[in-house]
């Protein structure tokens, strides 16, 4: 593991038995797991290169229990790491040796479905897909659809502000969230938002979303649900170069069309996927676009024609429109299986997640090719093309000494490049431990201090999920101090009236 985690607190480790006993009193039955073998499944999340057994695992079932666990840990100075389904790709749910791992999986009930107000109130351990399933009988669905939707939880989605292939048109988690119940590290229970729009006061709901479990533990979530579009059809378009495919994406948007989804794959990704899923992808192209249009049939047919024409103008060499729901799903099956497909052609892979201004795609892909040669590692690219979110998959073999490190350095170079061309380190997977030490690429000391002061407002002792997101943790007292130069300042030289 190349990322340093906060040093374990020997005093906490020394009183482990007492801590376990106290937690058992709060969460009775099988809710506390302290045996090494039983804790194994919790030692890592989706970023499996990093592993650490927690001090103890707690699986609470009620907000009251969460509140009591946190209040106890707060008073004893014990660190806490929240966990949903553990599918994070950035190590957000990586345990700490001296920390309580707070698993939210037992919060698995759907509390309310309100079709009149088009919302669902669910517990955070409910999976993303289960929300859509629960409302499907009335023709509704929950729009954000991460590829991990069978497994990942709504609580994890809130913590990571997860997206999906449809977020170009329907937004990320943050745009589909109306309310939350959260528990602060000191045990305080707060409600943000509700069934109405735009809560009073500061947008704390907006802050919690994407906060990677560092600000509070989410114990209830209110999301908006949408009526399913009448129809959806997808077009599969192949191009002789990624430049052409990129130009096509821009031309579609410039024509005023916002597709439900617009995904791109490069040659290595296409080949890996086709071998795995047999989706009928063309193998003689450099880049493949999936463009999905949804809405009433009249709209979809109209827009498909326009997209086909634009694709032709942009030099597409193949173009297939889905003729049935089965065929549309087959087009997507390939894309959605891209990660496991790449997993088949390589013992291990790292999934990167930078976002770039779309026009920079050819430049970034060319540079990545050069890096691939330099590091001697293969890379396959899948790309949320509509919004510039790039997922380079770096292939490596953990059993070859030095390869993981080389893959990580390759990944870091890619992300630095994303920032250099005007993009960002992570589009949807979060900073976690993985990109923590790259934060200074994007933010100054002052920027990071301002963010940490937000953390201090929620968790003054810094006990909730420390070691994630911020490269250096400062004490809140130190961050709060103001350095104002002594004496009165002269009036600045600014126009005044």
């Amino acid at each position, binding site marked *: 593991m190349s990322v340093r985690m906060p040093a374990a607190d020997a005093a906490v480790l020394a009183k482990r038995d007492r801590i376990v006993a106290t937690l058992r009193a709060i969460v009775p039955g099988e809710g506390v797991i302290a045996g090494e073998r039983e804790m194994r499944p919790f030692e890592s999340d989706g970023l499996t290169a990093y592993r650490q057994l927690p001090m103890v695992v707690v699986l609470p079932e009620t907000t009251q229990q969460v509140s009591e666990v946190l209040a106890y840990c707060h008073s004893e100075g014990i660190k806490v790491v929240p966990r949903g389904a553990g599918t994070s790709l950035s190590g957000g749910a990586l345990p700490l040796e001296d920390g309580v791992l707070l698993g939210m999986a037992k919060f698995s009930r759907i509390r309310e479905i309100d079709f009149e107000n088009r919302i669902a109130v669910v517990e955070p351990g409910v999976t993303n897909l289960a929300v859509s399933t629960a409302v499907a009988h009335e023709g509704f669905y929950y729009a954000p659809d991460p590829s991990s939707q069978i497994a990942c939880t709504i609580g994890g989605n809130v913590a990571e502000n997860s997206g999906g292939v449809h977020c170009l048109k329907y937004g990320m988690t943050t745009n589909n969230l109306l309310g939350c119940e959260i528990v602060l590290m000191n045990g305080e229970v707060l409600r943000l938002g509700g069934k109405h729009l735009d809560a009073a006061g500061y947008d704390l709901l907006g802050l919690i979303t994407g906060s990677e479990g560092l600000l509070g533990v989410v114990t209830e979530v209110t999301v908006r649900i949408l009526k399913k579009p009448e129809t959806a059809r997808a077009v599969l378009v192949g191009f002789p170069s990624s430049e052409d495919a990129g130009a096509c994406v821009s031309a579609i948007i410039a024509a005023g069309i916002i597709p439900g989804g617009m995904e791109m794959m490069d040659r290595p990704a296409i080949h890996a996927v086709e071998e795995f899923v047999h989706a009928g992808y063309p193998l003689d192209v450099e880049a493949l676009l999936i463009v999905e249009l949804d809405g009433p049939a009249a709209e979809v047919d109209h827009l498909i024609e326009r997209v086909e024409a634009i694709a032709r103008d942009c030099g597409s060499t193949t173009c297939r429109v889905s003729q049935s729901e089965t065929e549309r799903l087959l087009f997507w099956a390939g894309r959605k299986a891209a990660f496991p497909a790449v997993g088949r052609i390589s013992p291990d892979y790292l999934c990167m997640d930078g976002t770039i201004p779309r026009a920079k795609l050819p430049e970034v892909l060319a540079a990545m090719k050069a890096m691939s040669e330099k590091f001697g590692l293969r890379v396959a690219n899948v790309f949320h093309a509509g919004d510039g979110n790039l997922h380079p998959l770096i292939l490596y073999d953990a059993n070859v000494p030095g390869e993981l490190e080389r893959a990580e350095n390759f990944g870091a170079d890619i992300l630095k490049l994303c920032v250099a061309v005007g993009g960002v380190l992570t589009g949807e997977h979060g900073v976690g431990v993985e990109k923590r030490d790259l934060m200074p690429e994007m*933010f100054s000391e002052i920027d990071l201090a301002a963010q940490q002061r937000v953390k201090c407002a929620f968790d003054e002792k810094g006990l909730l999920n420390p070691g994630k997101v911020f490269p250096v943790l400062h004490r809140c007292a130190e961050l709060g101090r103001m350095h104002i130069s002594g004496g009165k300042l002269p009036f600045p030289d600014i126009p005044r009236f």
Partner: protein
Amino acid sequence: MTEVLKPRDAKEVEDAVRWALGNDKALELAGQGTKRGIGRPSQTDATLDLSDLTGVTLYEPAELVLSARAGTPLREIEKLLDDNNQQLAFEPMDYGPLFGLEAGQGTIGGAIASNLSGPRRIKQGAARDHFLGVSAVTGRGETIKSGGRVVKNVTGYDMCKVLAGSWGTLAAMTDITIKVLPKPETESTVVVFGLDDAQACAAMAAAMGSSCDVSGAAHLPDHVASYFDGLPKPEAATVLRLEGVAPSVKHRQEALLALLRPFGPAAMLEARDSTALWRGIREVRPFTTAAAQARPLWRISTAPGQGHAVAARITPAAQMFYDWAGGLIWAAMPFADEPDSGSIRGALADLGGHATLVRAPAAVRAVADVFEPETAGLRALNKRVKDGFDPKGVLNPGRMWAGV
């Protein structure tokens, strides 16, 4: 007479805040001052007028992104977008006319700082949902940046969200990047006449629960209907807007008419009338008249299905209409010096939601809770957030709540 500081660039904004910090002064932040009447009147020593920070610095239509200095007039941005067949999808409302000011004076900074939105809020979100990146000077006199120019970004906390709707109490924004979207090719509106408030809420719920992709849903009771352009007759009107490409709008219009026929007699407004009508709704037209100026005005957000129940708890002498499928109520109270906070706050305590006293004489606003009072826990958390950005309270002190 308070001093007005008018910085010419971001560096001078920093200088101004540092001066205030070093001399224990408090600043009022203003874009164009169109929303000055909203919020608690704050006690400040000088105005930090940001209206000289102007200009669009980046606009790439195919990337759906625009950056501008915070004092850039919204009107200028909307014109530029319109020339490129694009728009601000959150449809920011113009508060000027509600305060007897000229329309079209607001700035992009003011729009973001007050998290503006319009009728399309129910489909496309508010300013917050389109706010991608920012550079701002905090109450510590330090320049921070957050976000970027790309839509998908989860790097670090989403500071844009907390600045949106903070009414200039956390930081003075100097540069803003927003997501822009294509303008719909055409629009039309389906109108159902003669419904009472409860029936109207049910009709709007049916429309919103259909796959017609409604982009505006309002109910205009008969006592306000005559104020709106575009309606064929001054009768209670429940109106539903459809936008998109022509064949799609036509198809959905027929589906919606069929769906709503059981509720009452329905009609259709073509694009021109539809545009005029929704502009009036967005600008809260009935309450901008000279006669209405003296009436305290509430903006109430609640669950759409509860809209009529909340309204039923407000005095019948109030004038009201509904936007956001019933979830947004504009209520003009009958007496200048009596905002009737008690009944409104009481209804929301029971039914959920929040209310802002948007307009009232300064003397009333000085003593009333202009924004929804928070629970003790939330109030304390808001205060800690404020302290992180502005520990000495130099930016718009007391604008949102006493102490914040």
